[in-house]
């Protein structure tokens, strides 16, 4: 579903991602773990076509992000950001925001589908008339997930989807994401600094440090302590 080969991303003189390769199978949930500045979010943004200066190859369901028109790419892959306060438009009603990608892509019946999307993420249809400031953090993240799913993509890229939320709300959102992945046969790439979240959500994970991939593990290897790098061991110890 996702193939990344020898990806290098540069910002001026600094290199944010250096020679990173990984692949994610259809229906799989893949975790990217590492500290801030290790390059994990940059990888997601590059897959979405949000960064120009990169080298290597990226294939998303057979599409290349630099050659595919934005609308077409948006129907395959969507992103959910860490901070639902920042990723929703403060002056648009919730229903308007969820319907926006459908309107842009000329999908008929956006209104009815918006109600459907709200229901899917566990919010009542009356939420479409509310504004982001009237919602709690967890409800806002549900809206961001509904908007990401509005175009029925095959892949969700989730950048720290629960780190701005309280632990009790985190559990609700993680359960929701797992249910959606199962029901809609979605592929996930989840960026997180929290190994416990990744171990719970992902079948495989890649650990990153200083723009490079340190190692790739299966969940079973992580749980059995079959870890080769001392850096991963330190992360596990601090968790």
């Amino acid at each position: 579903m996702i193939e990344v080969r020898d990806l290098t991303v540069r910002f001026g003189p600094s290199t944010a991602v250096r020679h990173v390769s990984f692949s994610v199978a259809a229906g799989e949930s893949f975790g990217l773990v590492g500290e801030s500045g290790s390059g994990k979010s940059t990888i997601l943004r590059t897959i979405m076509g949000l960064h120009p200066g990169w080298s290597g190859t990226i294939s998303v369901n057979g599409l290349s992000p630099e050659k595919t028109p934005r609308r077409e790419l948006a129907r395959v892959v969507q992103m959910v950001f860490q901070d639902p306060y920042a990723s929703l438009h403060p002056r648009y009603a919730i229903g308007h925001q969820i319907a926006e990608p459908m309107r842009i892509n000329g999908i008929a019946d956006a209104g009815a589908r918006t109600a459907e999307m709200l229901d899917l993420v566990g919010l009542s249809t009356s939420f479409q008339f509310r504004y982001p400031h009237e919602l709690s953090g967890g409800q806002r993240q549900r809206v961001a997930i509904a908007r990401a799913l509005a175009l029925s993509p095959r892949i969700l890229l989730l950048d720290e989807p629960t780190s701005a939320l309280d632990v009790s709300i985190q559990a609700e959102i993680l359960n929701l994401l797992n249910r959606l992945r199962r029901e809609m046969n979605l592929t996930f790439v989840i960026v997180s600094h929290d190994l416990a979240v990744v171990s719970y959500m992902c079948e495989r994970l890649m650990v990153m440090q200083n723009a490079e991939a340190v190692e790739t593990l299966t969940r079973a290897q992580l749980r059995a302590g079959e870890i080769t790098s001392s850096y991963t061991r330190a992360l596990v110890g601090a968790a």
Partner: protein
Amino acid sequence: MSTLAHIENLRVAFRTDEGSLREVVRGVSFTLGREKLGIVGESGSGKSITGRSLLGVLPPYAQMTADRLTFGNIDLLRASPKLRRSLRGGRMGMILQDPKFSLNPVMRIGEQIVEAIRIGDRRIGGRLARQRALQTLEAVHIREPERVARLYPHELSGGMGQRVMIAMMVVREPDLLIADEPTSALDVTVRTQVLSILDELVTRRGMGLIFISHDLNLVAKFCDRVLVMYAGAIVETLEASRLREAKHPYTQGLLSCLPTINGSLDPLPVLKREGSWAEPVR
């Protein structure tokens, strides 16, 4: 253990748009010794407002009452604004979550620490103050203090910024430090460093620390005692090492909804809130 602060029946209310009063802290009582006291709870549980009440930095429109609010032998309820101001930064300090918003963006790090020193004691000469600023930066494990002192806040990483904040607070050697989510913005490895600095200050200087956090595991590992707050009231007080033996369903719920590296892959238990948890206190 000598008592450093004593709070009895603290209540803080804000006026709502409709004009009614909404209590966000509802009858909180506790004493603090020279220890690491954790306050945990979700956002909106009143943990930060409790810390701010003690420091005296609530917004002017907040309505605060308490039966007792003392710091050492000072009655904070009767203390003049001037006295309270002199306590802040001197005998009481506060560290906030995000150093980006707490440091002056257009002033070099070294100058900010020197300013903090000289506000406390104007008799200290410039040269001596600069020397002490460098020593403090070194004490919070900043490797090249002379270079860092010349930097502006935007040139620091999050972890360095947080250590600079701690340096600014501890340079005056406060008796009480309130740390409000001091490590939430930091990576795990930097977090460990920052915590060990705070720990050192408590043990070596006999400081009292109020550590406000939403992270139960962290508080269980780091603190001596934990207050669990829900909807503005303390629902449970525990020895940190015995957090797992919590009795209150809210604390138990918070603990069980956390995923763990080796935990089950079944859906996570979700906190079911009971109306009775938020009943009026006493």
